[in-house]
C-alpha cells in the first residue's frame, strides 16, 4: 500500500511554525464536521495541471475528477494546450476486484496516442491507494515506452489538505521533471530566474513577465502557470528561484538549492511597493551593480506612473475599512497593496498563515491595529464586519455569498478572481474594482426594499 507520503514532506526547516512542532505532520488537519478546503489531490492538481502540454490523469473513482474539473482559472496559452482537458481512469467496482493498473495503463496509452503530449501526470487517489495499486510501476513502464516523463503523483486525499498536495506536486516535479533537459544556449541571458507558485490567474503571469523583461530579467521557467514540460525540465539552469505566494512550494525551492545551488527568495507581486521590492530583491540577488542601477531607475519612473493612475481611486478609497480573509502569503501581501490604495485593513485571516506570514503582517501594521483572525467561519466574519464597521470584504469565492447575502460589498481575491491584481497594472485593476464595488447602488436599493 502507498498510504504514506514521504516523511520529508512534513518537515519544512524554513517554516518557523513547522520547526516548533514536535511531531512532523501536515499543518491543520481537518476536523470531522468542518467545511475546510480541498484535499491533497486538489492541491497537487492546482500546482501541476497548468502545465499545458502534459496530460493530467486522475486515477480514481469518477468523483475525484468528474465532479469538479474545468474550474481552474489558471490561463494557459499556446498551441499544445491540454490544460482544458480532464482525464480519469474512473475506476468502478470491477476494477476494485480485479485491479485497475492495467486499465490505467491502457487508458493512458490511448490518450498519449491520441494527443501526443510532452508528459503525463498520474494522480493517485484514496481508493486505489487503499487497494494498493502501483501507479509508480505504471508510470515507469510508460516513461520507457513513450520516452516522455510519466510522473506518479502520490496525492491521495486522506493524506492531508491542499497544502500537502502542493508539496507533493513540488516533490514530483523535482524527482521526475526538473533537470531532465538542457536548454538551448540562446534562450539564456545573464539574469535567468524561475517563478515558483505563479499560476497565471487571469493572465497575471503575463503582467509580471512584462515587468521583469522591462528590467532586463529573463523568466526562464514559470512553475507552473502557462508552463510547458520543456521549460520545467530545464529550470535547473536558472540563477535564482523566486517563490511567489506559496509557502508549500518553498520545499521545491529548497530542494533545488540543495541539488543545483540555485538560491531562492520569497516575494509577492501584490501592490506597488511589493512589486518594487520584488524587482529590487531579484536584481540584488544577482549582485550586479548595473542591473541594480537599472532596476532602481525603472522603479522610480514606474512608481510615478502608477501613483498617478491610482490617484482617482485612492482619493475615494483613503480611510475605507477592509476585512481581508484569504490564505497564507496573501494575508500580508495584499495588505501592502491595500495600503498603497490608502485603505485601512482592520483584520486579516491567518487560518492558513505560517508564523513567518504573521510576522510579515506585523511589518505592514505600523500601529499594531490589525486583528489576526483565526476563526473565519461565516458567522464570525459577518459579526466582525459589522462590529468593526468594515466597508468591504476581500476574500475567496466561498465567502462571496456570506457577504452579499448580508448586504456587505465583496471582492474575490482568490483563484476565482475575475481580474488580474498583481504587478504594476494589477494594483490599478484592484483599486478600480474596489472603487466600483463600493459605489454599486445595489446594496442601498435592496436595503431600502428589504
Amino acid at each position: 500500500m502507498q498510504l504514506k507520503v514521504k516523511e520529508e514532506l512534513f518537515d519544512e526547516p524554513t517554516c518557523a511554525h513547522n520547526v516548533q512542532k514536535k511531531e512532523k505532520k501536515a499543518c491543520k488537519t481537518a476536523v470531522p464536521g468542518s467545511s475546510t478546503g480541498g484535499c491533497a489531490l486538489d492541491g497537487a492538481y492546482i500546482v501541476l495541471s497548468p502545465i499545458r502540454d502534459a496530460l493530467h490523469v486522475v486515477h480514481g473513482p469518477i468523483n475525484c475528477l468528474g465532479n469538479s474539473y474545468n474550474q481552474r482559472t489558471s490561463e494557459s496559452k499556446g498551441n499544445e494546450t491540454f490544460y482544458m482537458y480532464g482525464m480519469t481512469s474512473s475506476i468502478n467496482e470491477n476494477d476494485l476486484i480485479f485491479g485497475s493498473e492495467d486499465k490505467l495503463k491502457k487508458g493512458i496509452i490511448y490518450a498519449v496516442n491520441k494527443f501526443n503530449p510532452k508528459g503525463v501526470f498520474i494522480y493517485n487517489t484514496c481508493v486505489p491507494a487503499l487497494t494498493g495499486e502501483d501507479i509508480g510501476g505504471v508510470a515507469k513502464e510508460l516513461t520507457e515506452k513513450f520516452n516522455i516523463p510519466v510522473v506518479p503523483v502520490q496525492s491521495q486525499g486522506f493524506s492531508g489538505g491542499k497544502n500537502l498536495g502542493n508539496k507533493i506536486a513540488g516533490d514530483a516535479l523535482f524527482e521526475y521533471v526538473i533537470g531532465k533537459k538542457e536548454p538551448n544556449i540562446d534562450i539564456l541571458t545573464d539574469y535567468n530566474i524561475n517563478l515558483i507558485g505563479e499560476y497565471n490567474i487571469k493572465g497575471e503571469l503575463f503582467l509580471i513577465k512584462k515587468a521583469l523583461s522591462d528590467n532586463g530579467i529573463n523568466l526562464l521557467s514559470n512553475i507552473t502557470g502557462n508552463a510547458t514540460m520543456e521549460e520545467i525540465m530545464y529550470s535547473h539552469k536558472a540563477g535564482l528561484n523566486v517563490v511567489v505566494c506559496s509557502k508549500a512550494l518553498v520545499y521545491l525551492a529548497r530542494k533545488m538549492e540543495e541539488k543545483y545551488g540555485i538560491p531562492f527568495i520569497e516575494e509577492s507581486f501584490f501592490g506597488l511597493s511589493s512589486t518594487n521590492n520584488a524587482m529590487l530583491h531579484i536584481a540584488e540577488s544577482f549582485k550586479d551593480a548595473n542591473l541594480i542601477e537599472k532596476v532602481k531607475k525603472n522603479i522610480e519612473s514606474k512608481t510615478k506612473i502608477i501613483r498617478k493612475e491610482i490617484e482617482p481611486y485612492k482619493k475615494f478609497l483613503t480611510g475605507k475599512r477592509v476585512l481581508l480573509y484569504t490564505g497564507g502569503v496573501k494575508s500580508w501581501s495584499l495588505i501592502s497593496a491595500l495600503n498603497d490604495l490608502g485603505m485601512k485593513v482592520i483584520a486579516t485571516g491567518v487560518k492558513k498563515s505560517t508564523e513567518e506570514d504573521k510576522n510579515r503582517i506585523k511589518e505592514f501594521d505600523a500601529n499594531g491595529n490589525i486583528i489576526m483572525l483565526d476563526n473565519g467561519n461565516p458567522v464570525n466574519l459577518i459579526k466582525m464586519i459589522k462590529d468593526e464597521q468594515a466597508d468591504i470584504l476581500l476574500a475567496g469565492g466561498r465567502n462571496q455569498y456570506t457577504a452579499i447575502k448580508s448586504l456587505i460589498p465583496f471582492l474575490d481575491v482568490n483563484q476565482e478572481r475575475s481580474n488580474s491584481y498583481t504587478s504594476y497594472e494589477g494594483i490599478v485593476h484592484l483599486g478600480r474594482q474596489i472603487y466600483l464595488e463600493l459605489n454599486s447602488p445595489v446594496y442601498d436599493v435592496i436595503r431600502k426594499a428589504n
Partner: protein
Amino acid sequence: MENLKNIEINPLKTSSSLGAVIVFLGIKNSVVLMHGSQGCASFDKVTLTKHYRENIPVYTTALNELGAILGGSGYLKAGVKNIVDKINPAFIGITSTGLSEVNGEDIHATFNDLKKELKESGNYNNLSLAYVNTPDYDGNFEEGYKNAILSLLQTFCIDDREGAADARNNETIDKNNIRNISDYKNNDKDKNKDSGAKDTENIRANVFCPFSFTAMDFLELRDLLEDFGITPVMIPDLGTSMDGHLDENGYLQTTSGGTDIEDLKKAGLNNLNIIIGSSLQSLIAPVKKITGLNTYYFSNVSGLRNTDLFFKFLEKISSRKTPERYKRQKRQLMDAYLDTHFYFLGKNIAIAEGIDILDSFSEVLSEVGANIKIGVTTSKAYENLKNRFEILTEGDIDSFGELIESDGNGIDLVISNSNAEYTAEKIGVPILKVGFPLIDRIGHNFKHYILYKGSANMVYEAANLLMSVNETLMEEV
C-alpha cells in the same frame, strides 16, 4: 466503445454521492455531511457553489489515513455532533463516498447506532437524519439522486414511524384510512368535513422530479398543481431551496426552503404519487410500496404531446378543468412551434447530457422537426430513447466531440453543459448550455424547459442559436 479506451477524457459523468448531496440540499433547514476525505466534500461544494451561486452547506467527516484503514465510525459520529453544535440544522443528510465504502465498513450500522445515541442523550430531539450509500465507484449521479430519495422515504415513512405518529397526533387518519384517488370523489365523509371548501382542495400529492428540472421548472410545476387544487409535497424541493432568493434572515448556514421533514413523515397519508423523469422510472415500484399510494409516472412533461397528456391526467385526478392561462400557454406553444420550425428544417442536433435532458430536449426538438442525431449519456439506461436518436451511446465529452466531427451531415447545434463549451467551440458549433454544471452562465435557475411555457422557451432558445449561424451563411453566399 467507452470500454475500449479505458479512460474518461473530459467526463460527462458525475458520481452518485453528488446526486445524493443535491437531494439533501432540497430539504428545508438542511446540512449535508459527506463521509469521506475532505476533498470529496470540497470538490462537490466548489462545483455546486459555482453552479447555484449560493452558499452550499456541505460538510466533511474528514477521514484521514487512520480512519480509512481502521474504520471511520468515530469520524462520522463526531462530524454529526460538531455540526449540531455549530449550526443546529433541522436535518442532516449523510452520504458515503468511495473512500468510506472501500474497506467494506458497515456505515449503515454506524448510522443506526448514532441515531440511537443521539436519541438516548435527549439533546438532539429536533434533529432528523438520513443516510444513503453512495460509493463513488459504483453507479452515477442519477443513481445517487434516486437512492437518496428512497432513503428519505424509507427513513421518514417507515423507520421513523414513531416520529411520524408524533407529528400527526392530532389527526385521526391511520394507515387504513389512506384515501385512494379513485375513490376520492365518492368519499362523502371528507366532503362533509370540508364543507365550504371545494371538494378537491384536499388532494395532496408526493411529487418526484428529476434533477434536470431547473428551479423555475420546480416552481412552475408547483403553481400548476396548486392551480388544479393539488397540494404538492415535492421530494426533493429544489424549487424553493435552490432558486436563489435572499432569505429574510440574510445569510443562512443551512438551506433556505425545501421539503419540510414533517411533510415527509406524512407522505404516506397523501393521496397519490407523481413521478416525473426517465431517470426516476425505477422509483415507481419502491415508492408505491413504501407509501402505499397510487403512483403515476411520466417520462417527461416537455413538448406538446406530453404536456397534453399531463394536463389530461391532472384534469382527471382533480376533477377540474384546465385553467384558462394554461390553455393560452398551449396556444402560445403551438405558435412557437410554427414560428421556429423553419430554423429547425434539416438541422442536426447533438446532445450530451444525463438521461432526463436527453429525453425532454429530444422530445421537443423532434416535435418541431429537427434531426436528433447524436446522444451521449452517462448510463446504459437509455433503451426507451433508442428510436429517437440516430446514435445513442454512453460516453464522455471527448467521444462526443469525435462523434460530432465524424458525422457526415454535420451537427448544427450542440446541447450540453459548461464542460462541453471547449469542445463545441473548437468544432465551431453553437452550444445551448443546459443541465449541470453551468459554471460560466448565470441565471439558469430562471430558465424553464417543461410544460407548455417551458417548451416554448426551449424552442426559442435553440432557434435563436441556429438563426445566428444561418445569417452568417447567407452573408457568405
